[in-house]
């Protein structure tokens, strides 16, 4: 058997929006109508499936360190640390900073119980849209109600942005995280940059 070579390959990785890095910086709008864009690359993402009330559900909650969310929009944990997003009644997504060692403990916690723990880290990238005009940009193509009374900070929903299926996660009052699949990241970022450009000029009365 060939000897296993463990090499740190993190230097060779390319994030889905690496080629747009300078465009994201240049597209930022400052001022009271400001809005900016940045990619949060290489986050750890783990898909969890477990029926609420089951032993697997309880075990995964314990291993994740936060109670799994129980209703639409709910996010457990913190946006800067480990967060668990509600995708469906028995479907959850763990989002944690790069390099989090969560997969092993979660797999062990599930054991042979019915359920699923899958590493989805490369599935979606995270685009953060922030600024006073962030909601206005997203509302150009998102059919969900993004008004604060319906979509408060600390909630996340599965919806579409333009034609792209995304997870939309509001982390702060004027900060949204958009999680498109990696293959849609280029389109989504260009779509957002296009939507942001109008705020660079003065409003037309």
């Amino acid at each position, binding site marked *: 058997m060939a000897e296993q070579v463990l090499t740190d390959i993190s230097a060779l990785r390319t994030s889905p929006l690496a080629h747009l890095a300078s465009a994201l910086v240049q597209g930022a709008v400052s001022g009271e109508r400001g809005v900016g864009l940045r990619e949060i690359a290489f986050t750890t993402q783990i898909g969890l499936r477990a029926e609420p009330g089951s032993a697997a559900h309880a075990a995964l909650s314990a291993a994740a360190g936060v109670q799994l969310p129980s209703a639409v929009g709910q996010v457990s944990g913190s946006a800067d640390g480990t967060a668990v997003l509600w995708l469906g009644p028995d479907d959850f997504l763990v989002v944690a900073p790069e390099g989090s060692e969560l997969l092993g403990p979660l797999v062990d916690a599930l054991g042979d119980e019915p359920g699923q723990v899958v590493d989805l880290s490369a599935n979606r990238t995270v685009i953060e849209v922030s600024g006073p005009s962030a909601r206005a940009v997203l509302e150009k193509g998102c059919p969900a109600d993004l008004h604060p009374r319906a979509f408060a900070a600390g909630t996340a*929903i*599965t919806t579409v942005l333009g034609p792209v299926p995304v997870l939309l996660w509001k982390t702060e009052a004027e900060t949204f995280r958009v999680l498109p699949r990696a293959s849609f990241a280029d389109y989504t970022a260009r779509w957002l940059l296009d939507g942001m450009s109008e705020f660079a000029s003065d409003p037309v009365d």
Partner: protein
Amino acid sequence: MMLIECPWCGPRNETEYGYGGEAHVAYPADPSALNDNEWAKFLFYRKNPKGLFAERWVHSAGCRRWFNAVRDTVTYEFKAVYKPGEPQPIKTTNAPAQGGTK
């Protein structure tokens, strides 16, 4: 634009949903006993009432779950939505069979 109430996600735009046809079409108890005519009836023949109709919908851009809805085919108004297995809140001509609420 029309808002459709997902039993899990609440009201969302109709563009997030997919249509699944008539609800409560029971799978034959013994499919191999059916002749071609009966099998074709199960596969392809659907009711097309004017008025209340029980239908299957899927929230494909949201929680990706299937659910049932009672819709008025004249006005397009959604009268009720209910999860699979739950009793039908409003009776329709294509109601679930006794003992089975698929």
